[in-house]
């Protein structure tokens, strides 16, 4: 069984369907959860934590079925919520000790561990200050600290770089990389920032309007784009497409007159220029398709809408 298994999951808020019957499996590693606003990312994360009871479907995390084994799941999961969280009059150390005790640590263990993780996230100087005096970046670090306090097997980070300046963002990403890649903690990273996902993640789940657009290995996604180009011609587009069809070349029409062309293994990219010559036109744009995650993400969303 995979580390996370989702089977036919459906979550609704009244008549609004937030997640519409999605199924996927995730292996240990760093997993990017991406999608536009309202795609269902936060709903999916809240379902993993048992905050939302699905209308149908099942979720298994490390072999534990939700919501039956919810306490077992919460014991092995660390969650960094998206929204700003602050316990105003409490110091970061006291807050983390309380979180540790809620997990089930003894007071001594919780205190020791709190100092360790606060050092780790770079709050060693400010840990005795009330949290109401913290900046947004410091509160983000407190949220990260409480999520790794109990040494979780799975770490769920919901928009971890929100509200951080460029330096803070890089430092946060460095920390996440350290925890996930070097310490071997499976991390689910929900973000809008696709370059972060591309740099950190080995697997990716793409959601749009509550539906699963893509789930799998990020590397394979890029490999599937070998011999895949985006092309536009100056005129005689119909003739060009006829030529492509005659040659047995698959293509899709994208917005703004761009063709997404997949060449068979037997043909080289020069063949596209021959087709253009036969159609009595010239190629105006010729780029490899899906060079980065942003392009892939946009093209998969466009595909969904078409």
């Amino acid at each position, binding site marked *: 069984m995979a580390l996370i298994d989702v089977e036919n999951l459906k979550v609704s808020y009244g008549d609004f369907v937030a997640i519409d019957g999605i199924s996927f499996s995730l292996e240990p590693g760093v997993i990017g959860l991406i999608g536009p606003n309202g795609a269902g990312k936060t709903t999916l994360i809240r379902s993993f934590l048992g905050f939302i009871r699905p209308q149908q479907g099942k979720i298994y995390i490390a072999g534990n079925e939700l919501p039956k084994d919810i306490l077992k799941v919460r014991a092995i999961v660390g969650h960094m919520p998206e929204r700003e969280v602050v316990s105003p009059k409490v110091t970061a150390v006291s807050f983390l000790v309380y979180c540790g005790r809620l997990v089930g640590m003894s007071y001594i263990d919780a205190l020791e561990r709190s100092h360790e993780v606060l050092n780790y996230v770079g709050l060693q100087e400010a840990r005795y200050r009330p949290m109401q005096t913290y900046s947004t970046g410091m509160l983000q670090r407190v949220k990260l600290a409480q999520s790794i306090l109990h040494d979780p097997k799975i770490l769920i980070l919901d928009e971890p770089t929100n509200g951080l300046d460029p330096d803070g963002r890089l430092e946060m990403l460095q920390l996440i990389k350290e925890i996930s890649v070097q*310490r071997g903690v499976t991390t689910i990273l929900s973000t809008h920032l696709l370059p972060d996902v591309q740099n950190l993640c080995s697997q990716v789940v793409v959601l749009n309007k509550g539906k699963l657009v893509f789930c799998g290995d990020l590397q394979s996604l890029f490999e599937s784009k070998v011999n895949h180009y985006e092309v536009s011609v100056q005129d005689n587009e119909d003739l060009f497409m006829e030529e492509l069809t005659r040659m047995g070349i698959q293509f899709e029409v994208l917005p703004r007159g761009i063709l997404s062309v997949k060449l068979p293994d037997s043909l080289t990219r020069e063949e596209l220029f021959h087709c253009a010559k036969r159609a009595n036109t010239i190629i105006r744009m010729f780029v490899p398709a899906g060079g980065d995650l942003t392009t892939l993400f946009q093209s998969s969303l466009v595909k969904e809408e078409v």
Partner: protein
Amino acid sequence: MPVYTFSYRPFEGKYLRHFRWWVVFLEEVRLWNRARIFQLLALLGLLQPIARFIQIIMYNAAMQDPNHPLAPVIRSVVWLKVDSELYYHFIRLQAPIVFLVLLYVGAGAICADRKNRLWDIYFSKPIHWYDYLTGKIFAVAFCGYCLTFIPSILLMFVDYATKKNSTWIDMFSYIPIMGNSFLFSSVIVIPTALGIVCASSVFPTENITVISVVTIIIANTSLAGLLSNFMRDMNYMQISFPVAIYFMGQKIFDVDRNIFFRTMDVNATWMFMYIFLTSLICLLICILQVRKAERG
């Protein structure tokens, strides 16, 4: 931000699986214990126990020494007498300060966590809604007992210790008074704590919670007064929650001096059911609110 490569290590300690509500209870007590306003209110709440302490010592000293200069004065003042009624009056007079203190400690019990979005973090830990709610309610109720039942036990001990020639068998004579004190304290503390925590789970901020609770109590008592005046029937006063609580106290201690209650055709079972059902409704609202946050 420096990354301390060697400062993050796997946790190898043991996890405690039970009594998570105790952690919530301790944290809640720790939080309000350090607040200046709470310390001030607690001091105010300690004034009566100190006065009663002096009263018991003076009374016992005067009663056991006929030659004591204060003996004739103390004997002639009825309300200085130390008997079971003293504990009734002690708890009755503590009720307003208990209400104020519980309002302070309970108003933010739940709404502050919700307002500061702490539920997202707390409920991502392995705790149930009932651990959280039990800890919160126990903390508020504990504070109430600290101002009513616990001082009354201490006063009983002072009374026992300052009586000369008292044997250990005399201690048993305090058991019924202890029971009555606990029951009357519970009638004051539990509905008040549940009512305030319930308001805290419903309203968005501490201030709105305080204003709402005070308004509800005033409206409830005013309604009872208006109805009893319009209908020319004092029985309608039973609708008032504070009146119902004081009446229960009189029944528990078997004190029947108040002319006000003699004008009513009061049924103790009805009063108890009124208080019990109100508390139950408050508890159910708390459960629904917190359970919804934890389980969706």
